[in-house]
């Protein structure tokens, strides 16, 4: 179905109402295979709602979402992961009283290919040696950075075609943030397509190929990361320069 010319994800005129509030007021988004795209903006701009809608946690009020050749706008939330869409939620959303390994296995819940799952588990442990050391520990006892690794590792266990990351740096010490972004770059280098929401817009744009800027439910600017980083308006509004 997919060719290199048609985007992996195509969102058109998406509107989302959240308890009477129009959080997303008609946005267009496109993500091509292999890209790392950043979605930046202030608190309450509608970024998290957009991501939640992409994985079915919130139903759109209007508009279309096409992922990998399928209309996913009204699919059941538990069907998204098997289509290749997975979210690393804000605040990480780990299962605190499952072990690290059980958390990772939950990422492969929809899969039945035991040998491949074992292979992917080994790959995640290669990526995060720290998690291998702590595989039998309850995930709720880990540090924030380690929990973020669990959340990312768990998402990778589903073999995503598109990985959505919601604020992976939230609440982490700067040195840990650097580490998490190093990992994000490594995953991107392996060819995983990603859409990243980040408060730290500078870091996000330095990591991403392209960026969208969201403001009060609308996308106001879309461009290459380099161009966005050089844009004086973006610099003063989001990059603190």
């Amino acid at each position, binding site marked *: 179905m997919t060719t290199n010319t048609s985007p992996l994800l195509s969102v058109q005129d998406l509107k989302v109402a959240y308890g009477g509030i129009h959080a997303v007021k008609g946005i267009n988004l496109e993500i091509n295979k292999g890209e790392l795209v950043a979605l930046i903006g202030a608190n309450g701009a509608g970024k998290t709602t957009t991501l939640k809608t992409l994985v079915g946690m919130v139903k759109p009020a209007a508009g279309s979402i096409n992922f990998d050749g399928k209309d996913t706008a009204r699919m059941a939330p538990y069907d998204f992961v098997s289509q290749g869409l997975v979210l690393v939620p804000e605040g990480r959303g780990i299962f605190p009283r499952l072990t690290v390994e059980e958390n990772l296995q939950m990422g492969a*819940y929809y899969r039945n290919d035991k040998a491949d799952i074992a292979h992917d588990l080994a790959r995640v442990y290669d990526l995060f040696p720290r998690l291998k050391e702590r595989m039998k520990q309850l995930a709720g006892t880990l540090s924030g950075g380690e929990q973020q690794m669990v959340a990312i590792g768990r998402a990778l266990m589903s073999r995503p075609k598109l990985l959505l990351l919601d604020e992976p740096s939230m609440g982490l010490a700067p040195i840990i943030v650097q580490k998490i972004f190093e990992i994000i770059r490594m995953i991107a280098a392996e060819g995983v397509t990603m859409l990243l929401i980040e408060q730290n817009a500078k870091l996000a744009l330095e990591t991403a190929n392209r960026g969208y800027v969201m403001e009060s439910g609308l996308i106001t600017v879309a461009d290459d990361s380099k161009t966005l980083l050089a844009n004086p308006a973006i610099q003063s509004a989001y990059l603190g320069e």
Partner: protein
Amino acid sequence: MDHLLQHLINGLVIGSVYALIALGYTMVYGIMQLINFAHGEIVMIGAMVTITCINMLLGANVALPGILLLTIGLAMAIPVSMALGYGIERVAYRPLRNAPRLAPLITAIGLSIVLQQVATLIWGRNYRPFPPILEIKTFEIGGAVITNLQVAIIVLAIVIMAALFFLIERSKLGRAMRATAQNIDVARLMGVNTNTIISLTFVIGSALGAVAGVMVAANYDQAHAYMGFLIGLKAFTAAVLGGIGNLGGAVLGGLVLGIIESLGAGYLSDLTGGVLTSSYKDIFAFAVLILVLLFRPSGLLGERVAERA
């Protein structure tokens, strides 16, 4: 001394039954933070269906050994209770999934009353004797007496609990159940059909409840349309005592409560100089409930792992 041992044995038997019922409460609570007060009625209906089924077989002059009749009765009662548990969740609780927590709680109490009334319509208001189909043998250990039925109750309870723990702790399905209990939104993101998991939780708890109901009816030789209320409340106490939401806690709470109650009943008369007799034994279960809620609301094993930000 021999009395003490006897009370401990009796406590262990009724405690095993409480534990099985408490597991049903605690599983549902763990996943939905809901006290399913209709669970006691599922226990009662399990007992009633078994008795009816055995009586029908006896009425049709089916010449089978007692144990086989009992097994057939159970095999009928378990699916009935499971279907009832499934139906209750579907009809009464699912529409209230996003309602304030008081709404499903009141619904649960309402359902409990409705089911009691339906049971009196079907089975009447009188005690139903458990058909005398089992050949009861007694064994003596250290001056105390235990029947073959009581041994069977304890052994069956252990087997069922072991199977449940294996399912929850070791299987992929159990992992999904635990994940759903801990973070339902993310479990759904991982591809878990959480509605199915919730239904399954009710169905499994109901199956355990049906078995427990038959155990009580067989052990006390009777069942009653209102029996679910008291035994349900006691098993709920057991679940709270162990730490609601915690499976191991439900088992521990059930056994501890059974033993406290049995010892209490045995010595109540001596302790109060004959003022209160053993018929006041229910005091103990609810005194335990009050004490736990006052001094350790998280229960014996209810300590949660700290969730770090």
